[in-house]
């Protein structure tokens, strides 16, 4: 993938333009394909412009955490596999992969749209473990948003397996039960390039940004609520900029949620 000189990106953004002709507050096209992987209990392939990620949900039966003895367990992981970018290396997840997975996890978990109590099988002893693993296939920027869309889409696609008498998964029985999810939490990233704010940065724009803010939003009885925030990048943001970024994220989140619900 050809990356464009950060200075050129900055100059363009300064004059209100973007290299892919988008408006500063315009999100890239989103394509969501649920049920892409038949071996997973839920999955979604997401294309965000030229960024492509694939999320798969697997279930296990495990012991609940001591501080939440009557709740299910959610775990989100992101794999920045080397086929997706010349800058990704094999090996254990680096800090960017860890940050991406944890930010995606928090937006979903903190929104409380998943009723974890319903995922408990036997308090203190047995509970559903919900694993969301996301593979990055093609990196053209804004992996947090792409992974967030893929994660919630895969969770909405997932169906719980049936259990036999000794609480192990019965692979023979048909899966019919969906997860208890009551909303669509979405992470939306806004970048500051120079003194302009742009939504959904591409890879070339990420190389030119000095700060970004990812905001988790969801819809609760028609009102947009926030569930998480994460500032990235090595610059600082003014309170006014943060305010604008939150509004931009709230606005863009609506389009993304509609795309997730339609898929």
């Amino acid at each position, binding site marked *: 993938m050809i990356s464009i000189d950060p200075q050129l990106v900055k100059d363009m953004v300064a004059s209100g333009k973007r290299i892919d002709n988008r408006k500063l507050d315009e999100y890239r096209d989103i394509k969501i394909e649920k049920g892409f992987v038949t071996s997973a209990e839920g999955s979604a392939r997401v294309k965000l412009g030229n960024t492509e990620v694939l999320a798969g949900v697997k279930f296990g039966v495990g012991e609940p955490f001591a501080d939440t003895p009557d709740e299910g367990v959610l775990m989100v992981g992101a794999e920045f596999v080397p086929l997706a970018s010349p800058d990704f290396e094999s090996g254990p997840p680096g800090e960017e992969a860890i940050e991406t997975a*944890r930010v995606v996890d928090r937006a979903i978990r903190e929104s409380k749209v998943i009723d974890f109590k319903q995922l408990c099988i036997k308090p203190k002893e047995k509970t559903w473990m919900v694993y969301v693993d996301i593979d990055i296939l093609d990196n053209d920027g804004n992996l947090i948003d792409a992974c967030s869309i893929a994660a919630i889409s895969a969770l909405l696609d997932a169906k719980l397996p049936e259990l036999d008498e000794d609480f192990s998964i019965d692979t023979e029985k048909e899966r019919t039960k969906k997860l208890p999810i009551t909303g669509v939490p979405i992470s939306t990233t806004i970048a500051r390039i120079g003194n302009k704010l742009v939504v959904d940065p591409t890879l070339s724009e990420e190389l030119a940004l000095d700060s970004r803010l990812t905001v988790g939003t969801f819809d609760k009885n028609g009102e947009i609520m926030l569930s998480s925030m994460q500032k990235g990048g090595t610059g600082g943001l003014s309170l006014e900029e943060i*305010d604008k970024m939150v509004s931009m994220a709230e606005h863009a989140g609506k389009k993304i949620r509609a795309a997730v619900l339609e898929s």
Partner: protein
Amino acid sequence: MTSDFTRIDGRKWDELRPIFASVGVLNKADGSAMFRLGNTVAVAGVYGPRKVYPKHEEEAERAILRTKYNMAAFATSERGRPGTSRRSIEISMVTRNALMPIMFLDEFPRTAIDVHIEVLQADASTRCVGINAACLALADAGLPMKDFVASCSAGKVGDKVVLDIAGKEDTEGELDLPVAYYPKKKQITLLQMDGITTGKEAREIIALAAKGAEKIYEAQKAALRTKY
């Protein structure tokens, strides 16, 4: 915001826990400091500017800033597993991002500045206390800095917005929002949030955390003056 209530530990809604800061607490490190906010205690040690190992991390034009946040196994009520965790890797990263804006890294090309933060006792806001200690340690190491960044958190307990959540408020609270604040530029260099709120309320909470950080900033300056 009306705020005529007393918190579990007796504080007012916009009151920080007691602060204690001390500079130059270690012998081997080039700079060091301890910062205490209530029952959260962190010590930071700075090494550098020094040679970069591994060599390929070296930058021709500037120093690299490396930050390591670690929590002692005994810092929490349940023993923590020693060593790196996904949590500590993320906190190390946001800590570095929080400190970058105040550093003059161009002054020391081909070197590394290493900041090690050890949380000795944890009662919420450990990343904030770590950043506060790290800033003082960087100054103690004699490194040129544009300013300090001061860090603290604000959040929500029940429906009430409060500064510097601690103890039961942390385990039972609805929302936690740590910030790091760069007072001279009035900029936020770290911002995270967990919990449900509206855009409008988030703004109030961020502003409250920034106000708290200004008080931390005064304590940092006072601690440095005591030493030098």
